[in-house]
C-alpha cells in the first residue's frame, strides 16, 4: 500500500509538450480517476506512472521512493490494459502466474495466490482455458486477476471497460470499485467516460490538452467546476453557457433578461447553468424558443434557443411536461446554481 506523488511532471515528444507541469498527491488506498477527452494526455500520464513512458522532467514517487528511473517490474505496480493484453498462448492460470514465476516465487505460493484471486473474481472454472475461449467480460476478469496475484502497491487501469458492452460495463464498474475497496490498493484509473469517472473515483483529475483543469471529489467537480471545460465535461446533458454581463450582484443576459447572482463579478462573463437546475417558471427571466423535445421518461429534455439570440439552450424538466416546437418557455434558476466564469481565461469566479 502506498501513496503516489506527482511533482511538476512534463512530457514532451520531440518539440511537442503533451503534459504540462502536472501536480498531484494520491493518498494511500484512494482510487483516482484521470478523465478527459481523447488526446488530452491521460494515458500518457498513466503510462509514465507505470514506467512504460519516460519522464521528461519532474518526479513520480510511489511510497517514499522516486521511481522515475525504475523499470516497470521494479515499481511494484500492476496494470490492466484496454485490450487486456493477455498472452494468447498461455492458459488463464499461466497468464496469472507468469509474473510470479519470473519473480521466482515458490510454486505452492503461486498456486495459492492464483487460486485466491480466481475465487475473488469467480474465474476458477476457466483456469485451464486459453484467453480466446473466453468472453470479453471473462477476459477482463482474468486481466484483473493477473493484477491481483501480484499483490502490488498500485493498480493502474487504462480504460479497462471500453471494449465491453454497455450493460457489462456498468456491472464490471461496480465490481472494480468493490474489489478496490476490499483490497484497499491505491489505484489510478483512466477513462474518457465521465459517468464512469464520477461513479468510480474517490477523486477525479480532469485533464484537458495536457493541463490539469481540476483535481477533486466528483461532487466538488459537479458543484463548483473550476473552469468552463470542467463545467461542460462533467454532467449530462452538459451545462448551458451564455454570454452575459455582471454588475452589482445581478447578471444581464445578451437579450436583456436579468438574473440575480454572480455577486463578485463585474463586466463581461460566461454564465453557466445546468439543465437540471432550471425550473419552469412563467415569470422566469430565461425565456427560450423550443426547437425539439426529447422525452426520456423520468425527465424531458427541452432543446431550444434563447429568445432574441442564437445561443443554444437545453433544459431538463419533469417527465410529463410537454412543449411544442416554436412555443416559448420560461425558466428561472436559483442564484446558487449559477456558475460564473471569466470570459478569457475560462476560470471560475466565486460567487
Amino acid at each position, binding site marked *: 500500500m502506498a501513496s503516489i506523488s506527482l511533482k511538476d511532471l512534463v512530457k514532451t515528444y520531440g518539440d511537442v509538450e503533451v503534459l504540462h507541469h502536472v501536480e498531484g498527491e494520491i493518498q494511500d488506498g484512494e482510487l483516482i480517476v484521470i478523465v478527459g477527452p481523447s488526446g488530452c494526455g491521460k494515458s500518457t500520464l498513466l503510462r509514465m506512472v*507505470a*514506467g*512504460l513512458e519516460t519522464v521528461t522532467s519532474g518526479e513520480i514517487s510511489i511510497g517514499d521512493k522516486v521511481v522515475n528511473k525504475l*523499470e*516497470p*517490474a*521494479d515499481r511494484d*505496480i*500492476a*496494470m490492466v*490494459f*484496454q*485490450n487486456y*493484453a*493477455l*498472452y*494468447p*498462448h498461455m492458459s488463464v492460470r499461466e497468464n496469472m502466474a*507468469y*509474473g510470479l514465476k*519470473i*519473480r521466482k516465487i515458490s510454486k505452492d505460493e503461486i498456486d495459492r495466490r492464483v487460486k485466491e484471486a480466481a475465487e475473488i473474481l469467480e474465474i476458477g472454472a476457466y483456469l485451464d482455458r486459453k484467453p*480466446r475461449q473466453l468472453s470479453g467480460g471473462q477476459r477482463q476478469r482474468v486481466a484483473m486477476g493477473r493484477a491481483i496475484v501480484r499483490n502490488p502497491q498500485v493498480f493502474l487501469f487504462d480504460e479497462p471497460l471500453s471494449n465491453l458492452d454497455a450493460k457489462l460495463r456498468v456491472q464490471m464498474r461496480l465490481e472494480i470499485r468493490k474489489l478496490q475497496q476490499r483490497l484497499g490498493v491505491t489505484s489510478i484509473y483512466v477513462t474518457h467516460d465521465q459517468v464512469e469517472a464520477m461513479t468510480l473515483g474517490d477523486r477525479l483529475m480532469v485533464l484537458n490538452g495536457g493541463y490539469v483543469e481540476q483535481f477533486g471529489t466528483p461532487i466538488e467537480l459537479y458543484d463548483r467546476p473550476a473552469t468552463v471545460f470542467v463545467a461542460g465535461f462533467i454532467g449530462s446533458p452538459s451545462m448551458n453557457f451564455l454570454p452575459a454581463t455582471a454588475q452589482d450582484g445581478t447578471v444581464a443576459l445578451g437579450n436583456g433578461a436579468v438574473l440575480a447572482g454572480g455577486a463578485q463579478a463585474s463586466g463581461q462573463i460566461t454564465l453557466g447553468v445546468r439543465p437540471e437546475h432550471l425550473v419552469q417558471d412563467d415569470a422566469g427571466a430565461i425565456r427560450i424558443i423550443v426547437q425539439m423535445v426529447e422525452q426520456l421518461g423520468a425527465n424531458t429534455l427541452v432543446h431550444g434557443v434563447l429568445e432574441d439570440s442564437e445561443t443554444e439552450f437545453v433544459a431538463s424538466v419533469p417527465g410529463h411536461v410537454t412543449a411544442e416546437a416554436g412555443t416559448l418557455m420560461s425558466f428561472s434558476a436559483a442564484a446558487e446554481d449559477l456558475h460564473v466564469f471569466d470570459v478569457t481565461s475560462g476560470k471560475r469566479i466565486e460567487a
Partner: protein
Amino acid sequence: MVENRRILGIMSHLVLILGVIMVALPIWITFVASTHDAVRMTQAPIPMLPGTHFFENFKQTLFGAGLSGSEGAPVWRMLLNSMAMALMIAFGKIAISLLSAFAIVYFKFPFRMGFFWMIFITLMLPVEVRILPTFEVVANLGMLNSYWGLSIPLIASATATFMLRQVFLTIPDEMLESARIDGAGPLRFFWDILIPLSRTNIAALFVILFIYGWNQYLWPLLITTDTDMTTIVMSIKQMLEAAEQSPQWNIIMMTALLAMIPPVFVVVGMQRLFVQGLTETDK
C-alpha cells in the same frame, strides 16, 4: 461466384483433371521407370505400366554404388548429406532471422532502419550472383567439402527476416508492455512470448526453407569435390553424364523418386501449421 450450372461444373472438373494429369504424369513416368530394368528403359516406346524390378532397383540405388560401373557414393549417403544441408540451412536461417527481426522490431539503436534495409537489399544478391566471392571466402576458411561450407553461405536470409519482422509487428505493443510489467527481460520475452506467438509462422518458414535448402544445386556442385559430400539433387544430374555409357534410367529415376520423398514428408507433415502460418491473422 456460386454458379450452379452443369456445364460449368463439368468444364471446371475437366480443367482441374487436366492440371492434375500435367503435374502427375512426369511423377508417374518416374515411378514406372524406376520399376524396370536398365535394358527395358532403352527400348522404345517407354513403358507406361510398372515393371517388376522395383525392389532390385531400390536396393541397388540406396545401398549399392548407385550406377553400376561408377564410383559415386551410395544414395543413402547423398540423402544424408542433403538432409543435413537442408536442416542446417532451415534451422540456421530461422535462428538468425528470428534474432535479427527481434533486434530490428524491439530495440532502438542507431541506424536501425539502415540495418534493416541493408538486410533487405541482400534480396538482390542471391548466391548465384555472389558465387565467386562467396566461394573464395569459404575456400579460405577451409570449409570446402564440409557441411558448414554447404550451409553457412546460404543461411543469411532477407526473406525470412522480413517475414518475421512483419509477424512481430502484428503482435500488439501491449504484449511487450505487459511482459515488462510482469518483469520479463528481453530474452525472456523472446522465448516465452514472441516465439510461441509466431510458432505457426516459423513452421511455415521452416517448410519453405527446408525445400529451398534441399533443392540447392549450383552451390553444392561448386564446393563439393569429395564424392562423400555429394547431395542427392546434384547427383541426379551427374548420373546422366556418368562415364561414357547410356544413362541407366531405372537407377536415375529411382534416385529422383527418393529425392522427392523427404520434402513431401515435410510438406505433408507440417501442412496444417503451414497453412495456418500463412493465413492466420489472429494474434
